[in-house]
């Protein structure tokens, strides 16, 4: 092994452990996705709520901001005190970090909906729910998507640290590389897929974000 250079070692590693890397890749992705999904389920309604009751917005976004300033390793340890070791701790950590971008973007998206359009909706006799469903959400969807995109990229990074509480994922491979003799190739074998995942997630959600953007949608229909 010592005779190979890092690239050859990397190829050798993938050839021998391909399935394992794939398993960890999907595990890593699932942990990130679950965290973000939970955050979306909680965060989007909160965002809608504080857009309606603006007085709350300062408080809620302030709290989410404070959560964001806690270093991720510290957050992981604090949550570990309550939930113990394992994958749930990481999912909850990801959840907390994903809250801010999601709440903030939902709020911004809702607030920036043109008041004239809202008035027109009301004038047509729409109920509040209908205004929300037919006007506000469609018009702010692209901004909300941008929040999800931020959150997911962030989540993929945090999940890598999750290996310290035994959650598995690609971080496991990186840590093993730091322990092994000549582990350079192993570190790369863990780090490159992590980066790749973040880039792909960013591109895919970026695509949806553009799709949902009201201005481009109109252009297509015209």
């Amino acid at each position, binding site marked *: 092994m010592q005779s190979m250079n890092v690239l050859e070692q990397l190829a050798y590693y993938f050839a*021998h452990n391909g399935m394992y890397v794939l398993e960890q890749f*999907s595990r890593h992705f699932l942990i990130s996705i679950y965290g973000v999904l939970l955050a979306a389920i909680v965060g989007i309604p909160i965002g809608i709520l504080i857009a309606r009751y603006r007085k709350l917005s300062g408080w809620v976004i302030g709290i989410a901001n404070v959560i964001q300033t806690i270093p991720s390793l510290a957050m992981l340890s604090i949550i570990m005190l309550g939930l*113990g070791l*394992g994958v749930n701790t990481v999912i909850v950590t990801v959840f907390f970090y994903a809250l801010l971008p999601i709440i903030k973007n939902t709020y911004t998206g809702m607030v920036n909906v043109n008041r004239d359009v809202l008035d027109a909706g009301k004038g047509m006799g729409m109920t509040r729910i209908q205004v929300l469903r037919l006007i506000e959400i469609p018009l702010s969807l692209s901004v909300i998507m941008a929040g999800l995109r931020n959150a997911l990229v962030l989540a993929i990074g945090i999940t890598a640290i999750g*290996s310290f509480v035994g959650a598995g994922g690609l971080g496991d491979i990186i840590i093993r590389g730091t322990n*092994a003799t000549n582990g350079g190739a192993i570190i790369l074998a863990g780090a490159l897929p992590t980066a790749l995942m973040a880039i792909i997630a960013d591109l895919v959600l970026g695509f949806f974000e553009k799709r949902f953007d009201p201005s481009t949608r109109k252009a297509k229909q015209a």
Partner: protein
Amino acid sequence: MRKHKLFKLTLLFLSLVTVLSGCGFPGLSSSSKDTVKIAAQNTTEQQIMAAVIQQMIEHYSDLNTAVISNLGSGTVSFQAQKRGDADLTAIRYNGTDMQTILNESGETDPAKVDQIVRKEFKDKYHMTYFPSYGFADTYQFMVTQKFAKEHNLNTVSDLKEVAPSMKVGIDQIWMNRKGDGYDDFQKQYGFSFGRVYPMQIGLVYNALASGKMDAVLGYSTDGRIGSYNLKLLKDDLHYFPPYEASVVVNDSALKRHPQLKGILRRLDGKFPLKTMQKLNYQVDNNLQEPAVVARNFLKQHNYFERSDD
């Protein structure tokens, strides 16, 4: 009409939350009841055995498994097991447990250590120590063949003359350990080393082979002892207790999953020292993941199919 819709939305929201948080996350086997959680430390040997146990359980039963890997020391994995975060630890070393968990030192007779630890773990912590895997892992001082020849070294006591000028790399866990750590080592052998570098255990062999250290304290099972042709120094004062390796399972888990016992017993004595060194070597030197090495090994031995008892 409006209220009805709001009600529907709330219901949908609530049910989503319960589905997602209540019964574990699909694909991660996180918190459901039929998941066996295996704790493993950050050493190669532990991760191999964790993978072996995981694959054995999946081969012989429908139980799900989750490995909690990379734990920092035996004490951490013990706490995890005590709290119920983990159901079993892939490898526990009875000598270490006697010193660090039970706080008893002085006993170095392997049979007695085995007896004491087995009984105390059962009574105090309701955990079952299984029979040994067949290998004992012990700390051993090692030097390069060249250094041994130069200073005529065979035993740890021989180090006394050269110790004050030596650079020695040791396991960071060992540094502050009570009972069989560095402090008591100095008392027993009556000398200390010039400079001591606590480091991650996986790195010591390389540090020794590349000449950055004069001697290191490593694990006797490591595959790199062979590949670097290192000289082991005999522990002539029998300072280090025996560290017979076995799996330790919570009694509650054994009760919940009665089939576990039979599955784990298949591994009794199947890993003699040479086998373990070979497996460790494949991971440490041949760029293979512990899980892959474990799979190949189990396939080769047909998952120990014929050792029903």
